[in-house]
């Protein structure tokens, strides 16, 4: 299994080639380098998956990175079923999305730059997934954050895009601060950063407490919650979700790859990877489950009224990530990862379809100005519907199996909040179906509401864009078939595959209850679609009336619960005020500049005095020499 090393390093090589030579040598052919590399990684990842299925796993250090006293950090790789799943998700999505980008980014000025960063992102994400220690995980974690920043601000000449990049980076600082602290505590407690020794010794610290701010906090809970802090930032959960909708300023393939399929799921991966830690702390699990469930519902309600096609899908992503955390929180890590895996396909598909629509509409994002695109863009329409059916949890599609598994395991979980999060999740499922089909009906059905010029321009996207759509829609349908539950006669292979890493939660419920949960989620999914059809196809006056009659609710939702305003008021403005008046006005202007300018001024004054000695007259110098010699001799004689 030595070839596994090529998986992350092929994209790294592509990045180096593209960033050095892309501008001058490859130019419009820059995509070849990146795509060949990532497809190569994909093929090796598939081979690795088969190796892992046949029972081989691997955990070895490759290179010692830092040694300092007892601290030793190494670059190492861990290949187990969880890693294998992540590898498949990352390389598949990355390959298809980069192929799509050939069409989408065609003719862009920074073509080579785009592909270079995509390769770098893929490298960092793979390093994150394949790491066997916390530090390398942290490295990949920050690396993907950096690439996310680069790519959100890809259109850096647009102020909103560069602002969104900064926002994503700064909001993630909050989460990563906690994550960093968590890693440090892990090291201080166990003296190593490798997963296996840490997880094996985890039971040894149960019951230990640390004194923190006047409270005794369980050490396990503290570590788990600090790590979860990082996951909240990266996976855009409440209260750090604000960066993801703004991140839609980046090119659409970036939204699809980074902000839907891979990077934002790193938080879920982290929680699943650290499941031995979370399992030991009930408090942490409850926090994870509640955060996930509340986020799922919260983001879904916002998505109901948004007008920007990409932002709707972004809120939908936040909501689905909430589901994954909900699953992890009730101990159903495998179900969470299963949802991660199916979500990667259908959400990447939805984003790429949105990109295809934007491509046809000349960059238009407002769905109020679309409509009737069905007949112009049949492939995009069909694939979009398949993706939406999948996310709505219609039986047979991928999203159904994963979402149903999460909801069932939440319902049947012994966790005290299990039933509550199940309820929130089910309501969110209804809303998900509703807003997904609202989007479809407003975009593809009805009459065209844009300008005449746009209508004239409407066209289906080129093959290089539609083929990835078709492949992803196959994924959106079939990806779930590897995890058909026992109840429906399947083998639940996915959960079995991950059992060795993530364990399997005990489901405390009868078959009848399982049928009921499944039935309810199907009913809410279908009724969500039905309601959307009724409101946006049959009675188009209802939404307008609702918005008018419940204008305060509508405005709150439309303004995303004013969270951005709240943060602006409580965090951003005070920070800016402090920066301007204290840091710039006092520390910088008075202290730093005072020292920096004061020292040369002092020297200048002193040397001005000293300069007068140098008269330029030789006999003055001669006199001084003679007097000096006399003085020294006199001193020598007197002190003898």
């Amino acid at each position, binding site marked *: 299994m030595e070839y596994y090393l090529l998986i992350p390093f092929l994209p790294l090589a592509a990045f180096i080639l593209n960033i050095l030579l892309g501008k001058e040598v490859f130019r419009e052919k820059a995509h070849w380098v990146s795509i060949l590399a990532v497809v190569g990684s994909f093929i090796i990842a598939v081979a690795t998956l088969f190796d892992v299925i046949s029972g081989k796993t691997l955990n070895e250090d490759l290179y010692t990175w830092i040694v300092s006293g007892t601290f030793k950090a190494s670059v190492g790789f861990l290949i187990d079923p969880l890693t294998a799943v992540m590898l498949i998700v990352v390389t598949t999505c990355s390959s298809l999305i980069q192929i799509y980008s050939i069409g989408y980014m065609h003719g862009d000025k920074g073509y080579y730059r785009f592909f270079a960063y995509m390769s770098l992102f893929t490298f960092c994400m793979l390093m994150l997934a394949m790491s066997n220690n916390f530090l390398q995980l942290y490295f990949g974690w920050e690396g993907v954050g950096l690439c996310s920043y680069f790519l959100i601000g890809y259109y850096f000449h647009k102020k909103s895009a560069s602002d969104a990049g900064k926002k994503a980076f700064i909001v993630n600082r909050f989460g990563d601060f906690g994550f960093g602290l968590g890693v440090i505590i892990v090291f201080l407690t166990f003296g190593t950063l490798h997963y296996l020794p840490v997880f094996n010794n985890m039971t040894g610290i149960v019951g230990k407490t640390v004194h923190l701010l006047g409270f005794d906090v369980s050490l396990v809970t503290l570590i788990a919650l600090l790590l979860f802090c990082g996951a909240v930032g990266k996976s855009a959960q409440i209260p750090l979700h604000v960066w993801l909708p703004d991140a839609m300023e980046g090119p659409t393939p970036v939204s699809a790859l980074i902000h839907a399929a891979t990077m934002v799921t790193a938080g879920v991966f982290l929680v699943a990877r650290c499941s031995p830690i979370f399992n030991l702390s009930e408090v942490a699990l409850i926090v994870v489950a509640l955060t996930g469930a509340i986020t799922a519902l919260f983001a879904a309600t916002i998505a109901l009224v948004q007008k920007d096609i990409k932002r709707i899908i972004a809120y939908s992503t936040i909501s689905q990530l909430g589901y994954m955390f909900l699953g992890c929180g009730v101990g159903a890590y495998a179900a969470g990862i299963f949802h991660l895996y199916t979500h990667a396909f259908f959400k990447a598909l939805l984003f790429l379809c949105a990109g295809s629509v934007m491509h046809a509409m000349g960059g238009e994002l407002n769905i109020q100005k679309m409509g009737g695109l069905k007949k112009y863009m049949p492939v995009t329409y069909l694939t979009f519907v398949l993706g939406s059916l999948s996310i709505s949890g219609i039986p047979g599609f991928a999203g159904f199996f994963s979402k149903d598994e999460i909801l069932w395991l939440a319902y049947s979980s012994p966790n005290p909040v299990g039933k509550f999060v199940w309820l929130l999740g089910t309501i969110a499922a209804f809303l998900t179906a509703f807003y997904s089909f609202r989007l479809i009906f407003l975009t593809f059905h009805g009459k065209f509401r844009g300008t005449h010029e746009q209508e004239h321009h409407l066209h289906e996207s080129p093959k290089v864009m539609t083929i990835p759509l078709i492949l992803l829609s196959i994924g959106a349908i079939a990806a779930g078939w590897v995890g058909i539950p026992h109840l429906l006669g399947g083998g639940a292979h996915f959960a079995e595959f991950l059992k060795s890493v993530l364990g399997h939660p005990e489901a405390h419920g009868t078959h009848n209850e399982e049928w009921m949960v499944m039935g309810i989620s199907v009913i809410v999914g279908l009724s969500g679609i039905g309601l959307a059809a009724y409101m946006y196809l049959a009675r188009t006056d209802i939404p307008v009336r609702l918005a008018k009659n419940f204008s305060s609710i509508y405005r709150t939702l439309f303004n995303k619960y004013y969270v951005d305003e709240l943060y602006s008021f409580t965090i951003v403005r005070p920070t800016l005020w402090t920066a301007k008046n204290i840091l710039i006005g006092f520390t910088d202007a008075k202290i730093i500049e005072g020292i920096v300018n004061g020292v040369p001024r002092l020297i200048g004054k002193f040397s001005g005095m000293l*300069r007068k000695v140098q008269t330029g007259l*030789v006999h003055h110098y*001669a006199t001084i020499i*003679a007097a000096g010699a006399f003085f020294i001799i006199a001193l020598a004689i007197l002190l003898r």
Partner: protein
Amino acid sequence: MLLSAAVFTIGVFGFLSRRNIIIMFMSIELMLNGVNISLISFSHYLQDMRGQILAFFVIAVAAAETVIGLAIVIALFRNKATVHVDKINEMKG
């Protein structure tokens, strides 16, 4: 010893009081020769040959120094048409 002290003092006085650069040079030579005399007399007095060796060194160095010094003076005279040191004050800080 008195002779050497006298020669050295004449040199110092000449160097400090005269403004003609050539005279100042000659004063330096006097100072050096004063030192030489004292070196040789000490050598004789202490029966140590090192004093005489040092005197030869001083003569050799003085010759080299005079050559360089006079060359500078000639170059200076070509530019300023004077050998009066008070008029040469370009180095004033």
